[in-house]
C-alpha cells in the first residue's frame, strides 16, 4: 500500500491504522521508519515533487519481493511543502520473522533514497531550492548525454 498526501503526514494516525490493519495477519514484527524534516541550514522546511507512475511501479516491485519472503510493505509520502519538525515519509515492513523485517526495512529505505522518483527542495525565504547536494542520480543515468557512458 502506497499513500501520497499533500503536506505533512499525520504520523500517529498512520502508525495506528497500519498496525490495526495487520493486527490479525499473524505478523510477528512491525517496523516503521519515520522521516522527519530537521531544522538545519536555515531552512523553513522541505518541498517534494513526486512522479507517481514510476513510484508506483517501483513500490509494486518491492511489494512483490517482500511477498516472496511472506512480508508486506506500506509507505506514505508527502507532496509539496513540509515544515521543519513535521514528517514527510513513513515506510513500514510487516513480517512473521524479525530478521526479515530488520533487513528489509534497511534495504527498502536505502533503495527508496537511491531510486524513488521524488525530488526534494529546501524552502528558504519562501522559495524552493533544489537539494542537488543531497540528491542521487538513479542507476543508469546519463545515457542521453552521449560520449563515453
Amino acid at each position, binding site marked *: 500500500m502506497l499513500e501520497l498526501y499533500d503536506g505533512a503526514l499525520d504520523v500517529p494516525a498512520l502508525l495506528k491504522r497500519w498496525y490495526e490493519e495487520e493486527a490479525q495477519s499473524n505478523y510477528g514484527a512491525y517496523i516503521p521508519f519515520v522521516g522527519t524534516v530537521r531544522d538545519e541550514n536555515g531552512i523553513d522546511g522541505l518541498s517534494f515533487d513526486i512522479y507517481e507512475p514510476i513510484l508506483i*511501479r517501483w513500490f509494486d516491485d518491492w511489494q512483490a519481493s517482500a511477498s516472496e519472503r511472506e512480508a508486506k510493505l506500506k509507505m506514505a*509520502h508527502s507532496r509539496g511543502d513540509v515544515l521543519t519538525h513535521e514528517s514527510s515519509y513513513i515506510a513500514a515492513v510487516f513480517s512473521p520473522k524479525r530478521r526479515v523485517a530488520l533487513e528489509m526495512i534497511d534495504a527498502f529505505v536505502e533503495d527508496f533514497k537511491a531510486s*524513488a522518483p521524488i525530488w526534494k*527542495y529546501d524552502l528558504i525565504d519562501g522559495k524552493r531550492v*533544489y537539494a542537488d547536494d543531497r540528491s542521487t*542520480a538513479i542507476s*543508469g543515468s546519463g545515457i*542521453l*548525454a552521449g560520449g563515453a557512458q
Partner: protein
Amino acid sequence: MVRIEFLGPIQKPAIEMEAASLAEVAKTLQQDPELKPWLDNSAVAVNDTLVSGLETPLKDGDKVSLLPPVCGG
C-alpha cells in the same frame, strides 16, 4: 511524434518531436545547452519504464521522461 517530459527540478515544459529511437532523442536534446548538465545525471524512462540503453525503438505516441537525481524521504 514522441513526447519528452522533464521531471522535477528540470523545470522545462514538455516538448514533442519526431524520433524513431532514443538515440535520435539524445541527438536533439544535446543541442540545448541548458539541458547539458541534466542529460549527464538524468535517468530515462520510456512509457514509465526505466531504460538502460539508447537502442530502445520509439513509436508514435511514446512518452520519454527525464528523471534527474532524486532525494525522497
